[in-house]
């Protein structure tokens, strides 16, 4: 009852300030950018330049094959011109088709930053692609798919997990310290110490306000961008668990400081660190252990699942359990710290 009272009072006070409306405004702005500025899917066709050194070479077949791989092919007259084009456009690649010892040779002309593994993969796999249609070549690799389901999102919807994690789930990480220190500076915290309610009622009330705001911001964004395809019950449960975790991290960090300025450096530092997981989210073949250990890493993939037509509900529930447990532990640690320091 006291918790409910504390939560409702904080909610009333929060909705009298700009902050909540700013968060909703940010969500609407993100929606506007995603819908009106960002294309549903990016055009991924990379520019490529082809130089054919000898008229006897099967240039048309090569050009057709490269076009089927999604490359936008342009022809150049000389090898020097090919290199010039690559120097003008650092995202382009080149192909030099020549005769070497009487045998056609396709040379990938890259920029130069590409790794040795990538170069070796290109050489071996493209040679295999040329060979596989020939008699005597044994295509013996079989593929077993463990979970066959449609797990693709449009590029536009694929942005949502990053926004949901960094803005809706970790909203408390940004703002809860401000709430606490504002109350402290106004003396409200000391007044609370002589009230019948407990410290955890006060802290949980603040977390409740952040949860309502995070949920409103998250639902608004998902409803307007992903529409009916999202799995709303799963999404709401996940957002509440991750938002509680974000707030508990914010409370825990803030519990070590006496004023907002001191805490903000650590808060912004944590947000920047957590944001690194977005690199692995967009490039799943790059996932070093250090990134996988960040709490934001599984969160991004769990939010992604809630936006799919056929989600892996087990993965989402595992995340809900993990973040709820994490939130509880951090909340208890922060509460103990606040009990000692907050009323000092």
């Amino acid at each position, binding site marked *: 009852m006291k918790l409910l009272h504390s939560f409702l009072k904080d909610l009333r006070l929060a909705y009298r300030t700009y902050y909540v409306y700013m968060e909703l405004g940010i969500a609407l702005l993100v929606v506007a950018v995603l819908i009106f500025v960002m294309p549903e899917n*990016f055009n991924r066709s990379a520019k490529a330049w082809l130089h054919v050194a000898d008229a006897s070479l099967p240039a048309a077949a090569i050009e057709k094959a490269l076009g089927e791989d999604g490359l936008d092919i342009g022809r150049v007259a000389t090898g020097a011109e090919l290199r010039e084009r690559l120097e003008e456009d650092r995202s382009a690649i080149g192909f030099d088709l020549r005769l070497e010892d009487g045998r056609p040779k396709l040379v990938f002309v890259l920029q130069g930053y590409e790794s040795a593994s990538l170069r070796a993969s290109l050489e071996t796999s493209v040679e295999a692609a040329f060979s596989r249609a020939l008699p005597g070549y044994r295509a013996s690799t079989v593929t077993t798919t463990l979970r066959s389901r449609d797990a693709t999102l449009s590029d536009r919807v694929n942005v949502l997990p990053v926004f949901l994690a960094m803005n809706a789930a970790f909203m408390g990480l940004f703002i809860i310290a401000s709430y606490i220190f504002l109350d402290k500076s106004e003396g409200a915290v000391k007044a609370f110490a002589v009230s019948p309610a407990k410290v955890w009622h006060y802290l949980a009330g603040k977390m409740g306000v952040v949860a309502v705001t995070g949920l409103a911001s998250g639902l608004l964004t998902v409803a307007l961008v992903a529409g009916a395809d999202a799995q709303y019950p799963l999404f709401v449960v996940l957002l509440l668990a991750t938002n509680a975790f974000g707030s508990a991290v914010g409370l825990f960090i803030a519990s070590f400081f006496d004023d907002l300025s001191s805490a903000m450096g*650590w808060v912004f530092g944590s947000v920047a660190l957590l944001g690194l997981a977005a690199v692995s989210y967009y490039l799943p073949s790059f996932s070093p252990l250090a990134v996988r250990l960040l709490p934001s890493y599984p969160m991004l993939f769990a939010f992604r699942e809630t936006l799919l037509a056929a989600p892996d509900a087990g993965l989402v529930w595992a995340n809900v359990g993990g973040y709820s447990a994490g939130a509880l532990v951090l909340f208890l640690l922060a509460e103990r710290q606040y009990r000692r320091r907050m009323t000092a």
Partner: protein
Amino acid sequence: MKRIYAVLRRDLMSGLRDFMVAFVLVMPFILALALRLIVPGVGAALFRAAVLEDQRGGVGAWLETYAPVESAKDRAALEARVLRTDDVFGVIENADGGHEIVRQGNEAGGGEALALLLDARTNADFESPVAVGVEDVGWKMSPLKLEGGNFLLVFLTVFGGMLIALGMVEEKMSNTLSAVNVSPIRRAEFVAGKATLGFLAPAVSSVGVILILGFEGIDLGMAAVTVLCTAAISVLIGFTIGLASTDPIAAVAGMKTVFLPVFASVFGAIFLSEKWQALLWWSPHYWSYRTMRSILLGEASWAQVGTSAAIILGITALGFLALAPKIRRGMK
């Protein structure tokens, strides 16, 4: 001048004590270091693979030429590894010399290349009808380093504004702002003292970012002009938000709102096609991003840097004209 320095010194000392200034100065260095560490790994391979422990020396060793490889003790462990969140393909060598790829089903790519590679291993003696080779034009800077470094250099200018906004709120809350009005320091000197930190922090951080990411060959003068001009708009925004906010919550929310146009300007400049770029001409951070990109690529001219600086300062001046009455009111 002495009084401006006194305001700057006080802000610097109190900020360092509170860790906020230290954070603003140190954070870009940490982000640059993180970027430097991840640049070689991102895009280094087309896929990642896991093999059975007893095949580590066989197909595992062979695959290491092409991608990072890890091992699992048996098939169940291999499948469990494949089913984890990231993209890893399981590879098993069969008794007949062929291979099996175990995939989860939601991988972003790399499966086809892996199948071709494994077929190539099985057909090691088969001569391809077309030889394939790889050459390059000697450009060693990866797109991630270029775009990431550029984003960092543009984004760190916002940190200076953030310092000013939080500092102004604190002044208001401790009533020192009204005390300034009755002290010998002129209002312009107070503002100049506060603003200096907003230019100083990005200037120091940008030098660190340039050195850490290995951009030291670029024209530092051009980079300095671009960073300082971009910092001007952040300083203006910092003052406006700080003076308009009655508490730190509003200041934090205000700065968070500023992140959005900065992100939109940079990502819009990267991803929007040329015909849509005009949508971003209003943003100083868009001009800053485009100019800094040319500087990092070694393609910028002073004419380009000067034009861009004039546009950024012009937009800042328009912003100042619009916001000056609000700032003046807030200072009272």
